[in-house]
């Protein structure tokens, strides 16, 4: 007859042995996964060929009704179209972060930018940006001005900008701001200077 206190001790020891075994098993699996990931050389994102640069963004502040410049650091390609797209994506990312001085709809982005004769940039914005944009003269104008001024600041060779939405021409961004016209960056710069 095994005394009761010995029985309890044996049961506790068995539980501790099983617990330790399971813990060791989990540790082993974790280390194997880590090794497998470390040995996987496939890229998880498209490489950006370019140098890390400081971009100057012209940010719209709805509450104050003004524009202010902000410097951000980003890897920017040297090819003009890709560079223009990266610059605008940096600006849109700034607006999409919370809290935002000028809110854009979730999912807003730039489909592509085409450079024509190095002087005309045709910016194709996605549907989400236009369809989810707040409707109003000032808020729409601020988006337009901010995009064009930021593009012109970081690509000084751009003299004219044409905005498309999902590859198509539209009359207005969300009912007010004119995107039928081709904008001169000089005209935009003049307005920004008044509103800084």
């Amino acid at each position, binding site marked *: 007859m095994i005394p009761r206190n010995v029985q309890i001790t044996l049961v506790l020891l068995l539980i501790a042995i099983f617990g330790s075994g399971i813990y060791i098993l989990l540790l082993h699996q974790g280390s194997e996964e880590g090794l497998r990931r470390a040995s996987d050389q496939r890229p998880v994102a498209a490489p950006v060929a370019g140098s890390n640069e400081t971009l100057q963004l012209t940010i719209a502040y709805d509450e104050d009704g003004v524009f202010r410049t902000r410097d951000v650091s980003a890897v920017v390609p040297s090819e003009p179209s890709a560079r223009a797209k990266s610059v605008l994506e940096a600006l849109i990312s700034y607006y999409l972060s919370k809290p935002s001085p000028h809110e854009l709809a979730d999912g807003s982005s730039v489909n592509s930018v085409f450079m024509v004769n190095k002087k005309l940039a045709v910016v194709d914005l996605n549907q989400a940006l236009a369809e989810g944009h707040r409707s109003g003269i000032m808020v729409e104008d601020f988006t337009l001005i901010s995009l064009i001024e930021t593009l012109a600041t970081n690509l000084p060779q751009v003299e004219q900008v044409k905005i498309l939405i999902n590859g198509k021409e539209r009359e207005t961004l969300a009912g007010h701001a004119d995107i039928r*016209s081709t904008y001169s960056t000089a005209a935009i710069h003049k307005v920004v200077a008044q509103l800084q």
Partner: protein
Amino acid sequence: MKFYLQNCFVASRCEFHLARKPQLRPSPIAYCLLLALLPLAAAEPDKLSVYAPPARYSVPVVSLDGRQYVGLLELVEPLSTPELKPDGKKWKLRIPDPKSAGKFAEAEFEEGSATAKVRGRQTTLSAPARNENRRLLVPLHGIGTVLIPLLGTDVTFHEGARRLFLGGTASAISSELRKGDPSTLALHFAEAVNPNIHSEGNALILSFTRDPVVSFTEYEGLNDKLFSSSAYEEKNGTATLTINGSAPLLAKFADNGRTIVVSAAPAPPSETPTASSPSNAQPQTPPEQAAQPTNVIESVVPGTAPLPIRRPQTSAFLVVIDAGHGGSDTGARITPNLPEKAITLSLARRLRQELQVRHIPVTMLRDSDSDLTLEQREAATNLARPSVFVSLHAEPGASLRIYTPALPTSSDAALQRNTFLPWQSAQGAFSADSGALASSAAEAMGKRKMNAQVRPAFLQPLHAIAAPAIAVEAPADANGLKISEDQLAGALAEAIAGRKPSGGGAQ
């Protein structure tokens, strides 16, 4: 890039020369074309006006096989959040039950069948339901058999006039003739109204499209020196009250829009030559009364290319008011049931009244819930050759703003007004005047304790307007404008009147 000449200026110049050289006559073909186009342009599309406690709106009416139909989704959408799903030939409508929260009311229709099921009970339509371009159309005749059980509300349908009153919204007009010298006629309404008011000769015509007003009397003799009679008519979703007088009449709002006081129009200043159309100039009418500015009010007919707007005289000072958005373009959603287009139209009508009181002729680009493209707005405005252009907007914000046109192109060479102007940047020749007008408007608003900011904006259709032009964006909320509509319209009218040359001519 679009760049074409401002062809309306070509037209205007021809007219100018013709006036001075009688030997030159326009081609008879042009007259024939114009006469042929006029009836087309004047035909207003059929519509059904719906008056319900949460919303007042109009929906288009379609005629098929001699019967009138209306889109079911368009009919109930402003009242609820409906779901209409096709399932083969059957269509299922589901709306939140207005009677009990959290539940749904359902109706089932079948294309080509006059039998429908509403809340599980079979009902018979006056004609088979139709599917036109993936829209479920139901017959207008007897629409109450669907709406009464579905919405669980009272329905009064003036079928001949296509006016549908839901939930007991109809309210009668009561009139009160205050005898005197001269007499006044007060029209009382159960709630604030916003009719389109214009005059034809000595008759004052009030058209109610968005107001659920009704009258039990079609004709009433008033037996007064100034007022001879009043006539009430309902047609195509609109109620029209005509007050006939022995002299030109003027309407003024009182009691926060719940009363309209009709009185004799004051004689315009004798030194101000205003316009009058030949058809309205009655030989027996005193000259100072014949020259009513309201004679030149016209609107662009929805769904058509803008007509050449009648211009009073080349020397007259004319204001074009653009009530922003309209039709399918709702503008900003101030609340789910209050679109920007409704606020801008109301403000535009108020501004028109304020200008008319100051004897300034006005043209409204739209005076109903009609679709107008930007190019139609630009063309109609430039053909009218206005002295001032005002575009009205509203947004769910807190600030009152006046915008001057910023041009998308920069040019060092200043544009000359009396030459051909590039269409997209015609405003370039008027930038300084637009800025001065904006400053005057801000000053007039300041006097009325309204703080307005003046800012540049890349706003359509201002770029292409060949006249001093501004846009006003007023703050709004669920109750409409956050600032007094009367005060805002008064300030704008004062600023515009301040730019009118003392001789009354165009600038």
